[in-house]
């Protein structure tokens, strides 16, 4: 190095041949010497840590939070990098499956927009600087017993965090803790207060029900209970189920529950209480409120069916309905002796979300807040606008925001602290039923971040133990006797604290609430709801979730305002026309989406969009509906005004056609139980016995096949995101989607086989046809068949003629029009941190190459390695594809159809088994079970009359 410096400075004029050669030589020397060892002593990796084999994935049990409730997970880690989330079968809120949010946590972890270092308004600072400032501030608070201290969080179920907060509140008796969730369950808790005089969480047991009436409830929709409810529902919806559950849904807009029901009625939200009263009246033989004829008829049939199935009938009321209706639901369930349990709520929030926020707002107004700590929440963005928190928080002198991102709230705070991701943290969480589990980190924090336990420790002012110690202390205190370390190890391994579910509460008889019939608001009402992709907005910067389609509209990267066709005609609004909706001073501008099955008089929009400080992915996507929300009426805004602008915009959609007319119904056969009993089969049931000119290929080892039960598919998209995570499927961004491109290897088609009935979902991965049309057309043999029947794509060989996709009747192949994962990534997705999320067992595809579903061939091969080590054939169930693992309802089965005993062989013998487009002679390996329905014959009689 020193020699280089001795060279005379080479000015261009002095550069002769000699000088040039000298420079060349020294340049070479410099390059060589730069490959040396670092100066510090380094330790070679001679002995491997126990259990770690480089390149072999390991699974660790941990817990992920959604709306504060834990869902157990097994995170897959390769060489120290978590790359995939799977469900934890032992955990009651996971049951081995995942949801879209759990799958997407990997993307959140590696999100390049995460907050990386503590900051004040102007500067990057150190944690020490913050700790000093906080210490000084807390000294002042101590003097006034914490009278100026306010802590704001989301829902907290973590026993350790609750313990820390309570300790802090004891230390500072005048301090206050407020917790809230934007997707609030206030109405449900208030309903239990009305009915039972206590704050209780109801746990309906769908698996024990035969008839369910859902009043705008969405047990199958996104949320902390989705997996558990969907699994219970699916157990009652297979051909063998006795009894086969019958689901009635009354709702103002489409939910997944509505789509999976046997009978659905679209009703204005104000009128749902009248419907409930009509059901009550019919059951009790009282006078029913006045309802339009079809609605009254629906109510009568529901009531009769519920009554006929006492102790197996269940009424569910959604969070958007008022407390009185929840109380009425409790009362009805009590009359029906319904399968419902009650527990004390797992969160320690006695106030309820609305009251917590109102109190906070008053405290801020009165200038009582001197020290404000906001942990993991984003109140500037996601609280009702009438509270005006957005302006008030900025006025607090000492405010701290601890969050994954520097979001809208951080922007208003004097200290912006980076929070560690769940996969980098030690903690504990309770599930919706109270079951506790430990949050275990899989990786050291990627950035200079801390977690909520650390911040509360700093606030407590003592030399705080680490989060790890805190969590251990919590659980050690609860255990008397026994070896704690053994227990701890076992608990970490299992991912669940044994026997920690909340005790069932004996409730006694509920009070019957006095519910008065309502009149539907005359003007338009605006209905808000949680978003299936970004929930309340917290996932807005997650690229996988932004590109995860809305189940009904298949819209990605944003949302629309949903209108019924009747309202659209009345207001002269076209589909996709940009409309303006306003109420008081707040307004929304978004494309109108006209859809069948939406109740007249109500328009709907999802919360969670229109973020301004989400990051490169989420900023400016969709519109923010929170400003229209009020504390008094968080879900339904009456008398909104609406105006069309005449401007029609292209909306990024992953599916453009939904109708199946005439013969098209064969693509999505739907059978009623009665038809199935009569021996009716789907049209392409007997597809394998069709005449052919080709010799039959004999697959003599394994013959991999997949069966997808469309009866069980609830349309939740967990498989779509799971596939994306497992197979390094790139995100392409809204512009490319608007071009009609998409990269998901697995798509969930939504079809409307009958306009009178709810739509159905059909997951479509590659069919792995035995006579694959894609193979003979490839000029370079990049699309080939393997001996086990997999249709394989050789990326290295592909030159991108795209003849294979042209000739694919299922259109399951995906083309890299640009280098979506290879130098031309969308937004900041080319960052190094995103690359760390890639599954090393799956090639990252370059530009100009065709790709598609491989049946998770890497998982097949891993199972093969294990089997070969013990010299046994791969056992049934040893290969679990990513989509199969994710599915909450176990709708996807994968296995070897050559094995007589395998689950897949049994499913392929089902009477409602069929192949999509089987008549083309492609002999697909992916096949389906037709959708089964259980309609009430009484309802059909009416329809025919």
């Amino acid at each position, binding site marked *: 190095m020193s020699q280089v410096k001795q060279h005379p400075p080479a000015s261009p004029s002095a550069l002769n041949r000699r000088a040039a050669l000298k420079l060349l030589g020294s340049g070479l020397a410099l390059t060589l010497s730069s490959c040396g060892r670092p100066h510090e002593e380094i330790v070679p990796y001679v002995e491997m840590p126990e259990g770690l084999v480089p390149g072999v994935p390991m699974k660790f049990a941990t817990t992920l939070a959604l709306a504060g409730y834990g869902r157990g997970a097994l995170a897959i880690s390769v060489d120290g990098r978590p790359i995939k989330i799977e469900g934890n079968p032992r955990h009651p809120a996971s049951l081995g499956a995942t949801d879209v949010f759990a799958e997407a946590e990997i993307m959140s972890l590696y999100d390049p927009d995460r907050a990386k270092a503590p900051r004040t308004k102007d500067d990057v600072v150190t944690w020490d600087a913050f700790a000093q400032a906080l210490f000084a501030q807390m000294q002042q608070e101590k003097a006034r017993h914490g009278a100026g201290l306010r802590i704001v969080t989301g829902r907290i179920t973590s026993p350790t965090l609750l313990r820390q907060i309570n300790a802090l509140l004891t230390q500072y008796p005048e301090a206050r803790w407020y917790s809230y969730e934007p997707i609030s369950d206030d109405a449900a808790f208030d309903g239990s207060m009305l009915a039972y005089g206590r704050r209780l969480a109801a746990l309906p047991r769908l698996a024990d029900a035969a008839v369910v009436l859902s009043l705008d409830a969405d047990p199958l929709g996104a949320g902390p209970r989705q997996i558990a409810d969907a699994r219970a529902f699916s157990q009652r919806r297979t051909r063998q189920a006795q009894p086969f559950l019958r689901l009635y849904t009354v709702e103002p807009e489409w939910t997944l529950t509505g789509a999976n029901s046997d009978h659905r009625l679209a009703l204005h939200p104000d009128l749902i209480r009248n419907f409930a009263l009509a059901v009550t009246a019919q059951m009790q033989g009282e006078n029913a409120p006045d309802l339009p004829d079809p609605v009254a008829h629906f109510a009568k049939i529901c009531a009769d069916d519920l009554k006929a199935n006492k102790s197996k009938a269940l009424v569910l009321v959604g969070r958007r309905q008022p407390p009185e209706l929840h109380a009425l639901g409790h009362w009805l369930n009590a009359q029906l002796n319904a399968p419902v349990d009650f527990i004390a709520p797992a969160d320690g929030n006695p106030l309820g979300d609305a009251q917590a926020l109102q109190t906070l707002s008053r405290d801020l107004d009165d200038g009582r807040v001197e020290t404000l700590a906001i942990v993991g929440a984003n109140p500037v963005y996601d609280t009702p606008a009438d509270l005006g928190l957005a302006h008030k928080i900025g006025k607090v002198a000492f405010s701290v925001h601890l969050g994954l991102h520097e979001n809208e709230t951080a922007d208003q705070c004097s200290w912006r602290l980076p929070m560690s991701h769940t996969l980098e943290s030690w903690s504990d969480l309770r599930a919706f039923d109270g079951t506790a589990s430990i949050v275990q980190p899989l990786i050291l924090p990627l950035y200079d971040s801390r977690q909520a336990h650390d911040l509360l420790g700093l606030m407590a002012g003592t030399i705080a133990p680490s989060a790890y110690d805190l969590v251990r202390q919590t659980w050690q205190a609860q255990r008397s006797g026994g070896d704690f370390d053994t227990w701890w190890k076992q608990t970490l391994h299992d991912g669940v604290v044994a026997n920690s579910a909340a005790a069932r509460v004996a409730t006694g008889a509920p009070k019957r609430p006095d519910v008065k019939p309502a009149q539907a608001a005359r003007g338009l009402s605006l209905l808000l709801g949680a978003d299936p992709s970004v929930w309340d907005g917290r996932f807005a910067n997650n690229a996988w979730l932004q590109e995860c389609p809305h189940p009904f509209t298949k819209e990605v990267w944003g949302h629309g305002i949903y209108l019924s066709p009747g309202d659209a005609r009345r207001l002269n609004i076209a589909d996709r026309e940009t409309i303006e909706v306003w109420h008081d001073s707040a307004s929304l501008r978004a494309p109108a989406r006209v859809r069948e099955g939406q109740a007249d008089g109500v328009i709907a929009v999802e919360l969670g969009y229109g973020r301004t400080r989400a990051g490169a992915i989420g900023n400016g996507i969709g519109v923010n509906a929170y400003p229209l929300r009020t504390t008094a009426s968080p879900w339904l805004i009456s008398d909104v005004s609406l105006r069309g602008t005449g401007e029609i915009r292209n909306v990024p959609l992953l599916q453009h056609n*939904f109708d199946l007319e005439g013969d098209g119904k064969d693509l999505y056969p739907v059978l009623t139980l009665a038809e199935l009993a009569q021996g009716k089969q789907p049209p392409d049931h007997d597809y394998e016995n069709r005449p052919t000119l080709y010799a039959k290929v004999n697959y003599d080892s394994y013959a991999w096949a997949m069966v997808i039960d469309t009866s069980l598919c609830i349309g939740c998209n967990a498989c779509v995101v799971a596939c994306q995570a497992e197979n390094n499927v790139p995100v392409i961004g809204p512009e*490319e989607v608007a071009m*009609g491109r998409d990269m998901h290897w697995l798509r969930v088609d939504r079809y409307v086989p009958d306009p009178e009935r709810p739509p159905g979902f059909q997951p479509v991965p590659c069919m792995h046809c035995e006579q694959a049309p894609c193979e003979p057309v490839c000029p370079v043999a990049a699309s080939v068949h393997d001996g086990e029947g997999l249709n394989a794509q050789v990326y290295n060989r592909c030159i991108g*003629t795209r003849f294979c996709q042209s000739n694919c009747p299922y259109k399951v192949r995906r083309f890299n029009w640009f*280098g979506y994962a290879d130098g031309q990534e969308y937004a900041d997705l080319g960052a190094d941190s995103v690359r760390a999320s890639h599954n090393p067992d799956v090639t990252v595809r370059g530009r100009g190459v065709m790709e598609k579903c491989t049946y998770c061939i890497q998982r097949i091969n891993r199972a093969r390695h294990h089997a070969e080590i013990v010299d046994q054939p791969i056992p049934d169930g040893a290969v679990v594809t990513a989509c199969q693992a994710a599915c909450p309802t176990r709708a996807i089965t994968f296995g070897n159809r050559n094995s007589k005993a395998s689950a897949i062989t049994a499913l392929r013998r089902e009477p409602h088994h069929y192949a999509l487009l089987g008549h083309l002679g492609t002999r697909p390996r992916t096949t389906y079970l037709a959708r089964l329905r259980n309609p009430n014959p009484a309802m059909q009689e009416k329809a025919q009359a």
Partner: protein
Amino acid sequence: MSLQAEPPEIERWTEPPGRSYLAISELVAAPLLERRQWRWRAWWIAFGIASGLTLIMAICMSWLFATGVGIFGNNTTIVWGLPIADYVWWIGIGNAGTLISSMLLLMRQRWRASINRFAEAMTLFAATIAGLFPIMHLGRPEYFYWLLPYPNTMVVWPQWRSALIWDFWAISSYILFSILFWYVGLIPDLATLRDRAKTAFPRSFYGALALGWRGSARHWYFYEHYHLTMACLAVPLVVSLHSVVGMDFAASLMPGWQESIFPPYFVVGAMYSGFAMVVLLTALVRWGFNLQPLITAEHFNVMAKIMLAASIIMGLSYLTEWFAAWYHGERAERWLVGFEFTGGYAPVYWCMLLFNCIVPQLFWFVRIRCSIVAVVVIAILINVGMWLERIEIVWNTLSHDFLPSMWRIFIPTFWDWALLFSSLGFFGFLYLLLARIFPMVSMHETRRLIYEESHQ
């Protein structure tokens, strides 16, 4: 045929100033050898425009190779787009030259003598440009040579069952053949130019290219045999070429493509658009080089008749397609026909039917056939219509196949259009260069035409 007396053949195909051997040589050779006297203004203007468009094409291709094939409007469903339609269209045009040279030669249609040379040149350039499009349409164009069975360390060969491989060979052999056929036909004329050249450079340039042609009986003997043999080879080649292009679509599973009528239907379509292009070029060459004595309205008349016949066959083909879709009974096939008439591209489809089947019916009228302006206008419409047909074949089937969930519409981008129109400019560029170097009408064959017609 009418009973009234036909004019003598020589009066049909030539005008008096062009009825001597010397006159023919002078008419054709003058622009090449006496450049000073010749006014090239129109040429320079045309060349300027064509060069500009060629530059645009170079920009398109650079941007394409730098950015990726995503610059086109293709999407997940409609993975084939404008470049494929452009390819089929250009290769169709590339068919006509050889058809005129060989098929008409074998059928002893002597009038072909005055137009076959520039029709062959058209073939050559159109086929070359056509060959570029599939490469530009590849995801990884740098590996196009993997279609060749070249020896490699991995012992991987192309996949012979793929129609694209057949296509690759069909185009390659056709281009090679066209070059040979065109060049050999040019040799006697190059010798004429060599002999008429007054300065040294043209003399040596044409002399070298004439390969020592002296016009001896022995030369002519070999030439005639060789030319006739090539013509006999050309006919099956030209039919196979477009049949194979048809099989790119027909050897598939898709509704609207999987039809046994495709190979002959594509051949006729190619002849149709090719003749339309020849008509256009004939009019331009005739005007540009003052060749009215050698190219008469009668030439347009007979070509119009051929186009009329082709348009009827095209109409029949469309009818057959619709019938087959109904008769086939497959849901997707029937859906597709409905989509063609009413779907997102319906205006395009109606235009195509109008241009390809309805408008050419005007050729039933002699006055239209003998009006050069009318024939040229209709020929342009036919060329547009045939391009629309090709894009419809690609779009309709891919937009509306078996699963409604994947139905989509193709919206072309700027680059799609830029490449199409700039390829026309590139064609013009090559053609104009050629016109400055080589004789646009075959002198020796025209002389023979005059000889034979005046000695009957």
